[in-house]
């Protein structure tokens, strides 16, 4: 598809030839994840996580469809139907625990996938569209996961829904009507539960659709690689199959081992005990905490404690609550602008000494801190840490990255992927690096 030396599909049997002539689906698969897709030869294990995210989505869809056969979206029956699944449905406990922990593992994998992209500059030209679609998938995942967490109708389901839909009421003028329209009532109730179930079932398929676009966009320039140097010739690549199917197979095994250990031996490790208490609109839990994968964003939301006001007049321009909501959404939306904020022509963090320092000693600790304090009660020390962490988060992407990409002096890049791998200079004459895609075969 992407490089002139990509292998061409040759049907092995008359049946496949017959199909291929009428509907080139075998050819499509061959070019997408088969021998017809040339991939840089130097990918490290961080490049496994795209395929793993796809597997995680499949696990969620398969377990989710079966769970939906036994689940009952009713405020009186939802909690008990989940317990019915846990107790009476054949292997229901497995389906439910796999789905519950599958969501967590989906996020673990996707977070590593995103950090791979952030460190190796996978969002830079010519791959901006892949990145934009990826951020879209991430947003859709967050919405899906939130609505899924509401479905068992436990205490955290109910109060999480109350808090999250409450964000919308911070919007001036239209906020409260908007919230009621979204919920179909004044508080989360039957109408909300029904629509969340409907959307929770729909959105994974929307995600699957955007993933097709994400992979399509990937196949135009081809995969990035740890050096960030573009592919210059056939010697720089290997066919996806069998080279990366084999490597991904091994990565998949490791991923599934981790998944199985948690699902079978500590299935409630990542959940909250309060969600085993049926929803009670009259009793607010002591600490309302979202699922772990939302904690950094929840910490950003809670970090805003002062109103933006004109001093000495008491006129509030932006209340702290609205600012928190804007910042929380902003913290994800800013990722859409990343390709234009980081203007350094060097992709890989390996060759960017300054960028690398801010990545490992700034961004990563900042996110660890935000994740931790997101789950803590509002004691002074945690509020201070969340404010420091959130301030660094915005400064990192919006101020520091644009500046370092101007002032930084990158290390010398290898001439080619093959040279980086073998340590020998290229035999053939190097093709000039083109920022856009090579000629399509």
């Amino acid at each position, binding site marked *: 598809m992407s490089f002139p030396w990509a292998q061409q599909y040759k049907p092995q049997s008359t049946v496949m030839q017959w199909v291929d002539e009428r509907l080139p689906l075998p050819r499509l698969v061959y070019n997408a994840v088969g021998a017809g897709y040339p991939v840089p030869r130097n990918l490290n294990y961080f490049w496994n996580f795209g395929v793993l995210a796809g597997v995680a989505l499949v696990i969620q869809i398969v377990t989710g469809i079966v769970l939906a056969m036994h689940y009952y979206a009713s405020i009186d029956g939802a909690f008990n139907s989940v*317990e019915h699944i846990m107790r009476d449905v054949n292997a229901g406990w497995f389906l439910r625990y796999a789905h519950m922990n599958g969501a967590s593992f989906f996020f673990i994998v996707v977070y590593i996938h995103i950090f791979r992209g952030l460190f190796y500059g996978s969002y830079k030209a010519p791959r901006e569209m892949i990145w934009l679609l990826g951020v879209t998938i991430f947003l859709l995942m967050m919405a899906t996961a939130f609505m899924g967490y509401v479905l068992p109708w436990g205490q955290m389901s109910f109060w999480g829904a109350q808090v999250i839909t409450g964000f919308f009421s911070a919007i001036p003028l239209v906020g409260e009507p908007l919230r009621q329209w979204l919920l179909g009532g004044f508080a989360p109730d039957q109408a909300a539960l029904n629509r969340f179930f409907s959307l929770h079932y729909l959105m994974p398929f929307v995600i699957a659709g955007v993933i097709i676009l994400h992979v399509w966009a990937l196949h135009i320039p081809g995969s990035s690689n740890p050096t960030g140097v573009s592919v210059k010739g056939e010697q720089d690549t290997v066919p996806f199959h069998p080279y990366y199917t084999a490597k991904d197979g091994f990565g998949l095994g490791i991923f599934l081992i981790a998944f199985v250990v948690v699902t079978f031996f500590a299935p409630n490790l990542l959940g909250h005990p309060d969600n*085993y208490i049926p929803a009670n609109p009259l009793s607010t839990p002591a600490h309302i905490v979202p699922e772990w994968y939302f904690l950094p964003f929840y910490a950003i939301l809670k970090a805003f404690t002062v109103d933006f006001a004109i001093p000495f007049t008491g006129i509030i321009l932006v209340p702290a609550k609205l600012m928190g909501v804007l910042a929380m959404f902003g913290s994800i939306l800013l990722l859409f602008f990343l390709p234009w904020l980081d203007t350094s022509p060097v992709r890989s963090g390996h060759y960017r000494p300054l960028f690398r320092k801010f990545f490992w000693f700034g961004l990563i600790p900042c996110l660890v801190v935000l994740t931790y304090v997101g789950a803590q009660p509002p004691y002074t020390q945690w509020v201070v840490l969340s*404010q420091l962490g959130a301030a660094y988060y915005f400064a990192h992407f919006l101020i520091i990255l644009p500046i370092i990409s101007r002032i930084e002096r990158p290390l010398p890049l290898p001439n080619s992927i093959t040279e980086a791998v073998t340590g020998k200079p290229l035999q053939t004459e190097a093709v000039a690096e083109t920022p856009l895609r090579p000629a399509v075969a």
Partner: protein
Amino acid sequence: MVRLVAFLVGVFFSGMLLLGLGDTVITAIKEPAVPTAEHDFYEKPLAVSFAHDGPLGKFDRGQLQRGLKVYSEVCAACHGLSLVSFRNFADLGYSEDEVKAIAKGWKTEVPTINPETGEPATRPAIPADRIPSPFANEVAARAANNNALPPDLSLITKARADGPAYVYSLLLGYREQVGYKNAEGKELLKEFPEAATPPGLNFNPWFATLNIAMAQPISADDQVTYDDGTKATQEQMAKDVSAFLTWTAEPKLENRKSAGWAALGFLIIFTGLAWMSYKTIWAGKKH
């Protein structure tokens, strides 16, 4: 343009956060956080171990049967177990006839209607029934319990952090409040004179608010007579009933662990083979 707007947004958000940080610090200095009795005197659950702990753990059937006895003779007076059916007691090692007898002899009968008059009535339980709740509804439960609602216990060990240890500690955690000192030697009523337990509640530092509506349920050794001859100390009864409530919350615990080992065994072989094919395919290819 993008970078200019981004810079301004970044300065605004980070600036407001740093302003808030200053505000937080000043507030904390001006009005230091007031210590509370709940914060200083709440006790984390005691360390307790069970046969079903760990990846190889299995339920101790004898212990579950003893726990059922404690539940039915002590807890069941106020607490329901609405997600468990009598037929599930077969998992505790009871025969079909024994399950029938337990159902038939249960103190609370199952609500039904009189087939001739349609009036509300009750009948003895059968194995297919869920455990009948001691109160007809929440109002009745609150009316009988000084307006407190005894929670259903089916999921209690999963609905509390460190659940089995929590139940065990709570049952043994009743203390005389006058003169109570915690492990650091601080005396509660000296530090917080206003924290005296209000009438109708009971002092228990293993409960989040330190004061629990439930009166001490296990108060003497041999409160229950065990069929297997085990000495019914208070610790033994508390431990047995928390093991039983672990089973009610997670009846498939053993299936889960054994399936986990099978899945793990399969995956280790799969991953080993995948590793070998990866190495074979990439052999001679520098990467």
